[in-house]
């Protein structure tokens, strides 16, 4: 028999026999157990594996919810309530799934901001980053379709507002709108296709996550210092170090998640979604789910509908260009005295947009919304390239192992001040 014999560490002849023919065990050994990671990853690096686990939780609960759900405008609302009342632990499945969507976004947003802070998108990880943005877009689409399924008031009117955005496209806008909905307004054909797409997209996300991981393995994880791994002294095997660190992080996350599921399962939702959809009665206020509020604020801050829609999508598409808009070659903000502060301004800006999105566009909210929208694009398109050119980064440590063993080298406060002045 040709081919290489199995390299898997085992005493079991059966496992060795299987692994020689189907190398699952050696794959797991090489890409999980022995997989080398930088030795200095902080807890901010937990959110990647957390997001993966969350995706599995969502698919797991979703498959069982779909067994009880009826995608029909007359029955959908009652079928969701019925599964919570009459199916064993149906309430638990649904509350996990419902709150899971929110927590999936919290995890992914932290994961993204971590990448932004530590420059994880820079060469050679541009495609890794862009695949991540694709995942974010797919998640938003999936969450949007999912929110329509219970067919409550906010499902119906939120979806009406979002699908109406397509009518902003000149000439072909209205035909596209009708084609997407399967009618002139939301109805049974819309609910059916949204259910179908809501079931489909998560598996496409799984596929893109696979690509994301292949791209990750190519150059390995970035790290808080943002410098490349120079040799085995900079690395530790994934198991047991990061398996345990990730599992501890998962435990902390599950505690917070459980508090929401069991103690305040409806706090992240809108009460109006417990009223069955009524096409004849518009709610006093139509608000999307919280995780879309910053983008909703950008949409509403621009008086022209078409430009507003373009700006809203542009707010995400600008992320695709981030690896080239940031002209600095230093990855980690630890060594970027100016960018470090600008990063936090961006975080504040996104929170401001989220707050504006949750309120009616009146008075101060209009002004704040417009300033915040302007600043969002100003940050990416003007500030980032300029800072990269003018900023004088601090000296980088020699290697990860040197920095880790000498402890305080990572962020020397004194040197930092000198470099700024």
């Amino acid at each position: 028999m040709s081919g290489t014999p199995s390299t898997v560490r085992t005493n079991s002849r059966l496992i060795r026999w299987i692994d020689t023919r189907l190398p699952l065990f050696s794959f797991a050994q090489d890409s999980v157990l022995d997989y080398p990671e930088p030795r200095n990853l902080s807890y901010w690096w937990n959110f990647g594996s957390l997001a993966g686990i969350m995706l599995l939780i969502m698919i797991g609960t979703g498959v069982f919810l779909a067994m009880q759900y009826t995608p029909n405008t007359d029955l959908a609302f009652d079928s969701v309530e019925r599964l919570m009342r009459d199916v064993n632990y149906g309430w638990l499945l649904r509350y996990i799934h419902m709150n899971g969507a929110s927590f999936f976004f919290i995890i992914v947003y932290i994961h993204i901001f971590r990448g932004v802070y530590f420059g994880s998108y820079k060469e050679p990880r541009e495609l890794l980053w862009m695949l991540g943005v694709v995942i974010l877009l797919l998640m938003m689409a999936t969450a949007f379709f999912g929110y329509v399924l219970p067919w409550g008031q906010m499902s119906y009117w939120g979806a009406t507002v979002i699908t109406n955005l397509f009518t902003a496209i000149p000439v072909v806008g209205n035909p596209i709108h009708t084609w997407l909905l399967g009618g002139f307004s939301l109805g049974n054909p819309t609910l059916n296709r949204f259910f179908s797409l809501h079931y489909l997209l998560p598996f496409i996300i799984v596929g893109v996550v696979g690509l994301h991981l292949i791209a990750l393995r190519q150059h390995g994880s970035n790290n808080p210092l943002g410098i490349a791994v120079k040799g085995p002294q900079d690395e530790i095997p994934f198991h047991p170090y990061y398996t345990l660190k990730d599992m501890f992080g998962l435990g902390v996350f599950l505690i917070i998640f459980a508090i929401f599921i069991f103690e305040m399962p409806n706090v992240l939702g809108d009460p109006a979604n417990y009223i069955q959809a009524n096409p004849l009665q518009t709610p006093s206020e139509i608000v999307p789910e919280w995780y879309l509020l910053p983008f909703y604020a950008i949409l509403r801050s621009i008086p022209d509908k078409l430009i507003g829609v373009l700006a809203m999508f542009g707010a995400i598409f600008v992320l695709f260009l981030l690896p080239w808009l940031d002209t600095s070659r230093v990855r980690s903000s630890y060594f970027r005295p100016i960018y470090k502060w600008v990063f936090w301004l961006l975080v504040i800006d996104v929170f401001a947009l989220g707050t504006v999105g949750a309120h009616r566009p009146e008075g101060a909210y209009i002004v704040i919304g417009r300033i915040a929208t302007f600043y969002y694009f100003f940050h990416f398109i003007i500030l980032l390239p300029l800072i990269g050119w003018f900023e004088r980064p601090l000296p980088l440590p020699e290697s990860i192992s040197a920095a880790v063993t000498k402890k305080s080298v990572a962020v020397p406060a004194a040197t930092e001040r000198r470099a700024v002045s």
Partner: protein
Amino acid sequence: MKRLVTIAAVSGAVLMAAASGAWAQEEPPDAPHQNWSFAGVFGTFDRGALQRGFQVYNEVCSNCHSMKLLHYRDLGPDGPGGGIGFSVAEVAAIAAQKQVEDGPNDQGEMFRRPGKAQDAFVSPFPNEQAARAANGGAAPPDLSVMVKSRGKGLEYLWGEGGPDYVFGILNGFENPPAGVKVTEGKYYNTYFAGHQISMPPPLADNTVKFQDNTKAALPQEAHDVVTFLTWAAEPYMEERKETGAKTILFLLAMTGVLYGAKRKVWKNLH
């Protein structure tokens, strides 16, 4: 560890922002907060209040409001969360007082029969149009998940905003302030958006005579019926909180062990 605290703080801030974003603002004053037996982490439903509340719904509210998502069996020991304390025989007796449309029979005709435990709560009107026609154009809403579909502000956090609001509405009927003109067929209510509600004041002192001889003052009736409606909206609430307490305790222990293991393994590195 310091870094861990930062991460926890940032995650917390994201959550707070998320929570505040989910609240909307509205004109009428927030209904004052009440003491509910089901409030808090270990709150449970007061069975006496539940049974009195069901009596109020059955004798008063159900003349206009449906509760389509509930079945008579839910009230008994086999119902979600163990029902509201009625025995199987009591549930059968309650259901038997109702007339349920069934059929078609083998002659192809619909017929009416006394209700059974497995029947859904009988609606007062055959359809929404009939409900509308009988109530001056405004159909009385279904009450199955009423308390979950109302309420905002901090109380909503613990699921008490809805009960507070419904209690406020039931107690909020007043003479309109000077200068406010109430439309024909509407009633002034302090806590209703726009203050003009189509529902006439449904409860007053002694509207019902409680079987357990509790004094039937208006706040008592309102308190009991809201307790019943909260149970109806989330009959599995007690199970949810109990499972939650156990789950969180387990997770705390598990996370503690994992933290110890992580520390032990990483100690060799530094």
